């Protein structure tokens, strides 16, 4: 039997990782990234002549937990048709037994890389609102993301925001394909999320994740997720992650209260972050709509629900909001006084 050197072992490992796309319409282009479940490649869809991204599991077999999770992720994505959620095109098993799905190839940057090019706070907040739209839409369809973090948000070349990696998603309702009430594509964004009691949560998601399994990313994961308290995870767990994301957009870190240059985050924004990331779910925003509404109110120069303003703060906000008119009136009054003084001289 041939002795295999360490280098030969490495080569065999590398070549074994390359997926066998025989029998599929895809031609492998390049390896993009490795995740916990498998590898993402770019490929050319030779039938439709377009570039796609293929998420392929490492280990063959359709019955493994990972295969079930990948398949569920593909199904979740297929049912969440929203401009902020990456669409899935195809799902199947490769000739070598590995489960895969094909999705839109998103050219762009991860949020944590992109954010360096966005200086103004209002622009960052508008970006955040687009994330909220996608997450709110998913909640309206009974799907929780459960792993919202900058690395899972992509920003495309035209500023489009896409929420990626739904591998840890939890399906609250079996019938997520049913459109939400009053189906207006924009209105659905802020529908009330479907809530089901924990004991009824017997969907395949629960079977995959199981009770007591900690899934998520530290810093962005809600306390109930960190405890592995699966029964208590609901839309408010994603709201916690959104709050941490908002804080990241404002300070560069999910748990910081000041920006890297030392400037403190404005009180009303800090209050929004604090409310969204409250330890107890009951103290958080009840749904994404409320959170997004508070951020929108801040952008419009209105009082936010998360923060009770002092008289000085109210005055300052009033001044900032109507600065142009206040200055105009002040200029008019000064002119009048000057004219009166001139006439009576």
């Amino acid at each position, binding site marked *: *039997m041939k002795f295999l050197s360490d280098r030969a072992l490495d080569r065999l490992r590398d070549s074994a990782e390359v997926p066998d796309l025989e029998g599929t319409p895809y031609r492998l282009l390049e390896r993009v990234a490795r995740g916990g479940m498998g590898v993402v490649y770019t490929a050319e869809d030779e039938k439709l002549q377009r570039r796609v991204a293929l998420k392929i599991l490492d280990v063959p077999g359709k019955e493994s937990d990972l295969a079930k999770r990948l398949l569920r992720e593909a199904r979740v994505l297929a049912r969440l048709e929203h401009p902020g959620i990456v669409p899935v095109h195809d*799902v199947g098993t490769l000739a070598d037994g590995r489960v895969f799905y094909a999705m839109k190839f998103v050219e762009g940057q991860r949020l944590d890389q992109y954010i360096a090019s966005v200086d103004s706070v209002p622009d960052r907040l508008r970006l955040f609102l687009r994330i909220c739209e996608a997450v709110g839409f998913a909640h309206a369809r009974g799907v929780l993301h459960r792993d919202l973090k900058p690395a899972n948000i992509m920003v495309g070349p035209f500023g489009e925001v896409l929420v990626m990696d739904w591998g840890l998603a939890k399906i609250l309702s079996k019938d997520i394909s049913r459109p939400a009430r009053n189906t207006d594509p924009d209105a659905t964004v802020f529908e009330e999320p479907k809530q089901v009691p924990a004991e009824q949560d017997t969907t395949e998601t629960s079977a995959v994740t199981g009770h007591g399994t900690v899934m998520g990313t530290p810093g962005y994961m809600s306390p109930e997720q960190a405890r592995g308290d699966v029964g208590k995870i609901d839309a408010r767990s994603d709201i916690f992650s959104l709050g941490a994301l908002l804080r990241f957009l404002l300070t560069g870190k999910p748990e910081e209260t000041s920006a890297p240059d030392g400037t403190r985050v404005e009180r009303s924004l800090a209050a929004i972050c604090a409310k969204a990331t409250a330890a107890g779910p009951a103290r958080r925003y009840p749904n994404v709509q409320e959170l997004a509404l508070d951020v929108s109110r801040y952008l419009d120069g209105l009082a936010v629900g998360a923060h009770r303003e002092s008289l000085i703060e109210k005055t300052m906000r009033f001044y900032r909001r109507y600065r142009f008119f206040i200055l105009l009136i002040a200029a008019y009054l000064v002119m009048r006084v000057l004219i009166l003084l001139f006439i009576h001289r």
Partner: protein
Amino acid sequence: MTQGDEQHGGDRFPPTRRSVIEAVRSIDAEERERALEALCAAYWKPVYKYIRLRWNRPADAAQDLTQGFFMELLERELLDKFDSKKSRLRTYLRLCVDSFVMNEDKAGRRLKRGGNVLHVALDFSSAEEELGAAVMDPAAIPSPESLEEFFEKEWVRSLFALAVEELRELCAAKERERTFLLFEAYDLDGNEKISYEQLAQEYGIPLTDVTNALAWARREFRRIALQRLREICGSEEEFQRETRAAFGWDAK
């Protein structure tokens, strides 16, 4: 998924064979023996090398202990106690080796083999050569703390070597000897400088023939290696875990 499976040829994936862990507990003596042989084929070299290095035994004593260990595995039905939910098979086997060698030391006995005979040819001279090659390179000598890592690496080497051997036999059976030679030259000899073009020139064949042959050989290698892995794992979960470990996907 069904549609996708048919479309993408998922039916080509081989059906799961019965695991050796199940087979070794079988009431059928023949099935038990076959299972032990499969296990022995995958593990004897790592066990031998481990005994040589961890227990610092001379070659003849290590050979005796290796054979004795696999006989003990069968006679004392040690695999019945293995629980794939609690540990990996190779960790369990390594601990069994440690305890076996210690017991043999305590008893101070010479191993006497008889009755049950292993039907796997244990080529100790090749194992010794491999070990010699490793010991020649001081960087390759494992420290006492890294012996577990060493055992794992040797297990992967043994598994891949078996898969390569089976691939060679498959190529011979399918009259694709040249395919194996190409695979050997490009993937096994570890020559960084060789290119597809050079291979095509050397064998006087078009470049596409080289790439197609290599793609086929790699696919078959992967299939065989996974099949062998599946055989020596006690559960689907363990198979998933062991595959990731063997192919180094956890470390990437």
